[in-house]
């Protein structure tokens, strides 16, 4: 039982990280109609900057703040230099150009920090465990990720639904020509939204650093999972991104933890040994196929 709760928490933790990535990607797609493969690169930039600034300043909080600002700056710069010209192009061009950007980002990181994974530390006060229930000690840092992720989700909901900026974002998603006709600086709105998404991806990378390997190419592994999240949740919908992220996070984590023991009870242990890991790593893609077969627009298709 304790193991199950622990794995559910792990699933939640993966889920909120996927959500931070998916929210930015889905906003950028919903509003600018841009397929941005380089979104994963911003995640990587966030992780590297956080590691670097934490080492340089000695303060974790300061490191996180600087990394967040740094990722925001990198994101806005990328938008201004390269992506801006892509909004009017078709999806094929966008995919290819941002694929090129991934190569550029990965190699730049490799030039600066090398190809091997770098060690990303945690400050002492975040290293402990917290006893949530009798006998269940859960890492403090992972709990923090869940809390921060859910808080960001709530803040995002507030911004999108209750503020003027959110109103513009929603309006831009449903009809951008009309928004521009009403005298809104749509270029500026695009840059703001992109920066916003970049910062969220950076935040996910910053938080991922101490748990996963910080190395060139780390963004793409996450990016493809985020695609699954978006397809499951429905493109352009923040609500869908949250639901999809939690579903994918839980399915993936629980599958990896329990599929093999479960298979061992229905088949022979050797068969379970062979099929378990393979099936577990395929699980979220199978989930995606099922969702598509039943609801091609995703679980929470956005309006228009």
């Amino acid at each position, binding site marked *: 039982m304790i193991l199950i709760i622990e794995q559910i928490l792990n699933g939640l933790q993966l889920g909120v990280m996927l959500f931070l990535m998916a929210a930015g990607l889905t906003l950028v797609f919903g509003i600018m109609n841009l397929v941005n493969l380089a979104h994963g690169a911003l995640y990587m930039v966030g992780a590297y900057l956080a590691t670097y600034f934490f080492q340089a300043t000695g303060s974790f909080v300061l490191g996180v703040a600087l990394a967040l600002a740094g990722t925001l700056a990198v994101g806005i710069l990328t938008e201004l230099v390269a992506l801006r*010209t892509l909004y009017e192009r078709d999806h094929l061009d966008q995919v*290819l150009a941002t694929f*090129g950007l991934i190569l550029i980002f990965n190699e730049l990181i490799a030039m600066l920090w090398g190809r091997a994974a770098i060690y990303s530390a945690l400050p002492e006060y975040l290293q402990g465990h917290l006893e949530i229930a009798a006998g269940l000690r859960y890492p403090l840092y992972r709990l923090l990720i869940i809390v921060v992720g859910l808080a960001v989700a709530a803040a995002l909901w507030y911004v999108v639904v209750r503020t003027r900026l959110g109103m513009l974002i929603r309006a831009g998603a449903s009809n951008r020509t009309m928004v521009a006709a009403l005298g809104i600086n749509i270029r500026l709105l695009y840059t703001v939204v992109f920066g916003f998404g970049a910062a969220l991806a950076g935040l996910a990378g910053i938080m991922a650093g101490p748990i996963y390997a910080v190395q060139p190419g780390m963004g793409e592994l996450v990016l493809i999972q985020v695609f699954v999240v978006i397809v499951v949740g429905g493109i352009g919908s923040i609500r869908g991104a949250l639901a999809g992220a939690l579903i994918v996070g839980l399915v993936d984590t629980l599958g990896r933890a329990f599929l093999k023991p479960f298979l061992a009870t229905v088949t022979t242990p050797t068969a379970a040994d*062979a099929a378990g890991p393979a099936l577990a790593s395929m699980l979220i*893609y199978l989930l995606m196929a099922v969702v*598509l077969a039943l609801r091609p627009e995703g679980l929470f298709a956005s309006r228009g």
Partner: protein
Amino acid sequence: MKPSPRTLVLFAVLALLAAVPTLAAAFNQPFYLDLFRRIMIFAIAAASLNLILGYGGMVSFGHAAYLGIGAYAVGVLAHHGIHNGWLQWAVAIGGSALVALVIGAVSIRTSGIYFIMITLAFTQMLYYMGISIEEYGGDDGIRVAKLSQFEGLIDLANPTAFYYVVLALLAVVLLLVHRLVNSRFGMVIRAAKSNDARTRAIGFSPYPYRLAAFVIAGAICGLAGALLVNQTAYLTPEFMNWTRSGELMFMVILGGIGTTAGPLFGAAALLLLEDLLQGWSLLPKLVHNFWQFYLGIVLVLVVLFAKRGLAGLLRGSKDGADG
């Protein structure tokens, strides 16, 4: 009918390719035999992608999947001691067609960005499957000690013989794709690309046609995968890496999307560029170590400024805008 300049260029290039083994032997540079064989294998794969991407408008970001299925068909059979080339290649082609049927049946129901993400995700699924099967080397891959055997007919271990097999297959595939897109079937595919609603209005349901094209493309790419694993003599899940799918797309774009010869030019351009960046002695060491950085810059510039690719340069200025 008078052959167009582009057809002439294609024939000239094929004739040049036929001369490569002689030239490589004359200058004692067997490396080039290997390089151009690899280029032609990727040209076959790119030609199959061109069929659905260039003519059918289906932006498949997972075409490396079939390269992988073809390679695994040969590699796995060889691992279990079955070396008959006819059987291996038939399984490679049939297996890829079957996988393409399943992936296509689900993904063609969607379009646009969904299609891109789904084809990518399915390929990633196969990639992880390859990684997690320890029996066939998992992450590291396994050596394929004995190449596909065609008793008494041809020996693939002979580099020159293998080279001409690939060249012949490339010519057949280019011709096949050319005939296909100019047939009634191809007309429907192209019509559905330019206007789905009108295609329905004149009485064609695009779905079965698109699916058929998707399966044919998968089968051809499976053949390329079978050739590729014979080329490398090594089976690895990296054949299915998503960057491979991206490279195939770039070959199609570089060569000129939706043209017969485009995939060949694109494969040659991309692989020669990669080869130069990695090993050309006139370039500084810094370029060799981080060659993908420069490749990325070239790719971004091509997309932004030279969308019509190399074949576009050969097109007369009169038929500038393609419809």
